[in-house]
């Protein structure tokens, strides 16, 4: 282990490191900060939604005249909230941080296959995210055409949109580097005996996610390049002939189609939503198996369902486009594929729910978040069904019902799963324990507040209130009956932010506490826990690289001495 005894300066050890664990932590810290910023943007928006046209307290003066949030800026905040949460927050946390740190450990590898590429991926992400927010400081403010950036609106928008596109190009490049790395690592660096059907589900989810990133992101990169051309040198890929914007006939030659963008965008963005949820499934599976002390029910069906899910996610994209004038054949095709893709999700959720039966359930903080995930994802997934039926989507499209749908899957869904992962693996990363009381407080307050924010969205959505409205629908008659719910939701959103203080406090306190010396506090079976120390060694991970003899979730095996048999345990 000569590497460990090298004298390394702070700089090479923590900043320019090529150790997958350090890079994982870099990803984690950066993306958590972005989550916080994404939350901050949304907190301002929610003030405007609750009390339209009244001055925002504290920071109003930075926002606009009289402290009132201007409509353009509201749109900027919305677009940037979506972009930041998805591309700078959740994906880097779920894939960059968790994937980087735990995939090599769980498969018994000494590092990622390409450590330098790994560092390059992080720094591209970092640069991309910095570019993305410089948008706020250019004339006209940040991108304000929604995270979907539909042209011609995006093409004619202010300069922030150009910055957004450059940022996207960087971020896409970063994910491509990351995904190549994960794919090669999983295929090439599995320890001896770690056959495909012995991989922990978490590794499977990261593997499939990497595939999705690899194949779905480049078309968006192509689209981003085309939109950049439209914006910078006046091509008209997305611009039809004869548009008149504020009284001026646009100079473009025309002949393009805004629908082309939508197709290319959703070709990425639907797989993207499964990129958000698959790692969450993986984390939840690990935590549930560990804390029920029994194997996952239907390991194979889980794996096949996830592969199928990954494949199907490439052929459902147009369910976001039912109202663009879609014909019957294609409409029927995409409705059918959308219903088909709901089946593997049902299978996955069913497998997880069935895994609880017969277990010996420990309700620690990670388990609470994992358990909270199940019904929350259930609500989010189920409300996807009416959206998938074009006829129902006529009414529900682009209402708060959609906002409710996807926030249930990403916020109390994915974010909860990520919290579960953070609490679960914290002892591994630091060798210390988190505080259970604070953790439980964090869970219960977050759980209540999440539902307080997002449940009423279904009501306003059913009433027909559109999303992306600066005044929250105040000027529309059909919102009259539900408008007052906005205030209710906003209060819960702010309380949700306050509840995160439990988390932040917990992290600080736990980081400052003493090391416990435990290597495997949860009595887990996967080799990240059983064959390495906590925290793991520097470069190299293992004293001796483990050999794998059994499946990932051999808990409570009848006749065994202890209630868990590590994967590398020969006996």
């Amino acid at each position: 282990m000569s590497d460990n005894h090298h004298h390394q300066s702070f700089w090479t050890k923590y900043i320019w490191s090529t150790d997958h664990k350090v890079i994982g932590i870099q990803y984690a810290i950066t993306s958590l900060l972005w989550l916080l910023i994404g939350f901050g943007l949304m907190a301002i928006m929610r003030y405007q939604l609750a009390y339209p046209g009244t001055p925002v307290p504290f920071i109003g003066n930075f926002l606009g005249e009289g402290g009132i949030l201007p409509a353009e800026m509201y749109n900027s905040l919305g677009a940037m909230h979506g972009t930041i949460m998805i591309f700078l927050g959740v994906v880097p946390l779920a894939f960059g941080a968790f994937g980087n740190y735990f995939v090599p450990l769980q498969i018994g590898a000494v590092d990622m296959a390409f450590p330098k590429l790994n560092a390059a991926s992080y720094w591209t992400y970092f640069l991309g995210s910095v570019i993305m927010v410089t948008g706020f400081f250019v004339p006209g403010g940040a991108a304000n055409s929604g995270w979907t950036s539909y042209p011609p609106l995006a093409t004619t928008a202010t300069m922030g949109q150009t910055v957004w596109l450059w940022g996207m190009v960087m971020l896409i490049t970063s994910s491509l580097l990351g995904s190549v790395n994960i794919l090669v690592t999983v295929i090439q660096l599995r320890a001896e005996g770690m056959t495909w059907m012995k991989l922990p589900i978490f590794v499977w989810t990261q593997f499939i996610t990497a595939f999705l990133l690899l194949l779905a992101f480049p078309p968006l990169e192509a689209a981003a390049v085309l939109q950049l051309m439209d914006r910078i040198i006046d091509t008209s890929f997305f611009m039809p002939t004869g548009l008149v914007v504020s009284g001026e006939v646009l100079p473009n030659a025309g002949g393009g189609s805004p629908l082309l963008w939508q197709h290319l965008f959703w070709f990425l963005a639907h797989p993207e939503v499964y990129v958000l949820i698959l790692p969450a499934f993986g984390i939840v599976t690990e935590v549930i198996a560990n804390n029920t002390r029994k194997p996952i029910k239907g390991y194979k069906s889980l794996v096949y369902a996830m592969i199928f899910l990954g494949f199907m996610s490439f052929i459902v994209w147009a369910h976001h486009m039912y109202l663009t004038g879609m014909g019957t054949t294609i409409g029927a095709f995409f409705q059918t594929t959308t219903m088909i893709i709901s089946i593997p999700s049902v299978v996955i959720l069913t497998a997880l729910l069935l895994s609880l039966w017969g277990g010996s359930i420990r309700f620690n903080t990670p388990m609470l978040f994992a358990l909270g995930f199940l019904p929350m994802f259930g609500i989010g997934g189920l409300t996807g069904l009416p959206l998938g039926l074009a006829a129902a989507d006529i009414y529900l499209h682009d209402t708060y019902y959609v906002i409710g749908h996807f926030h249930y899957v990403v916020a109390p869904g994915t974010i909860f799963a990520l919290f579960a992962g953070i609490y679960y693996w914290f002892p591994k990363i630091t060798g210390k324990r988190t505080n259970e009381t604070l953790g439980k407080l964090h869970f219960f307050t977050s759980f209540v507040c999440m539902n307080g924010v997002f449940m009423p969205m279904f009501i306003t959505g059913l009433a027909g209130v559109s999303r992306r409205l600066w005044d929250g629908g105040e000027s529309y008659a059909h919102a009259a009956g539900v408008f007052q719910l906005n205030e209710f939701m906003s209060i819960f959103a702010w309380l949700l932010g306050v509840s995160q203080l439990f988390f932040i406090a917990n992290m600080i306190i736990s980081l400052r506490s003493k090391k416990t010396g435990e290597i495997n506090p949860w009595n887990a079976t996967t080799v990240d826990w059983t064959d390495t120390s906590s925290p793991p060694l520097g470069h190299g991970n293992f004293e001796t690289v483990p050999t794998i003899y059994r499946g990932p979730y051999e808990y409570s095996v009848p006749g065994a001495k202890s209630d868990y048999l590590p994967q590398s345990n020969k006996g």
Partner: protein
Amino acid sequence: MSPEEVKHHIKTYIIVFVALMFLTVVTVAISYLDIGVVPGIALGLFVASIKASLVACYFMHLIDERTTIYWTLIATAISFLILIFLPIGAMLAQARVY
């Protein structure tokens, strides 16, 4: 790979090279034929595909590659086909546009 095998490969490369040159000429020649737009496109793409497969199979050694790479490429090919059929789907998608 033994030196004999490599030498054998080199012969293949030369043959492929000649074939590619020839097919390039063919492609250009086709474009001067007056066979209508659609057959022209079909034929042109057909020849291009032959050239592409030659490059992929011999220069990139796909002809005797490992299964893992085949799997990767199958997955890519499927997503690529979906992507290419996207515009066709999109045209069908438009119900009635006046």
